[in-house]
């Protein structure tokens, strides 16, 4: 991941200096351009922003994803956390992070006791085969984290 970031940054500078019309460079520059726009640039950074100093366990949280995604443009997923969802003990948030997309954030989902269940489903874009990380934050300060690998046959993200 670190190495990939480095390559993208260098490529952007090259493009800015040379204004080369080469398609490959233009694509890499596009990625670097978007990373500057908004949000954390890497999955590590995104995870650190959520967890801060909390040590997560892998209990209670379930991430549902297909093992193989034929089309990375739309990959169904669901995250659920086993919780009573009472005022004293509930899940506040679930975050879903990609480790292999140009931008790591997929979505953050917020719950309260009126949600009844800490469970959600949506569809994500995946640029390539990678690990997906789901993190849940509980009202008592605990965090739960899990990870799954998805094989992607055709990548999404317009790349």
């Amino acid at each position: 991941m670190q190495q990939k970031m480095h390559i993208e940054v260098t490529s952007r500078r090259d493009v800015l200096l040379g204004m080369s019309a080469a398609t490959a460079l233009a694509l890499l520059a596009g990625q670097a351009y978007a990373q500057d726009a908004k949000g954390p640039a890497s999955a590590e950074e995104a995870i650190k922003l959520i967890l801060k100093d909390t040590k997560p366990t892998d209990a209670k949280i379930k991430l549902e994803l297909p093992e193989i995604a034929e089309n990375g443009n739309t990959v169904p997923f669901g995250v659920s956390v086993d919780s009573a969802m009472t005022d004293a003990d509930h899940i506040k948030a679930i975050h879903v992070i990609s480790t292999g997309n140009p931008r790591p954030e997929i979505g953050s989902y917020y719950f309260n006791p009126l949600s009844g269940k800490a469970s959600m489903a949506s569809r994500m874009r995946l640029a390539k085969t990678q690990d997906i990380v789901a993190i849940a934050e509980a009202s008592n300060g605990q965090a739960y984290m899990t990870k799954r690998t998805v094989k992607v046959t055709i990548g999404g993200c317009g790349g």
Partner: protein
Amino acid sequence: MAELTKPRVKVNNSAKKDEVLEVKTLISHPMENGQRRDNAGKPIPQDLINLVVATFAGKEVFRAKLAAGTSSNPYVAFFFKATGSGDLVTTWTDDAGKSISDKQTITVS
């Protein structure tokens, strides 16, 4: 910026008291992630639906912050507790601050 068109929401409109209901939502939107370029090589600016908020009887029950990794025509499913009869209002907001809402009336017997 893409126009926000009528979203689709699927939920049981009748429930028992305190029943937890599943809500399935879908809205048409390109979810332009800011990564792509047009045929002339110009970057296509980011245009996302970045927020989906659901309230029931005026109280928030679910909130989703969507990022670039969410697919186009975003599908979001969630749950809420039908504490009594009331309206489930779901609102989608895009990067330009435009929003569109859907209302479903739930009757608790």
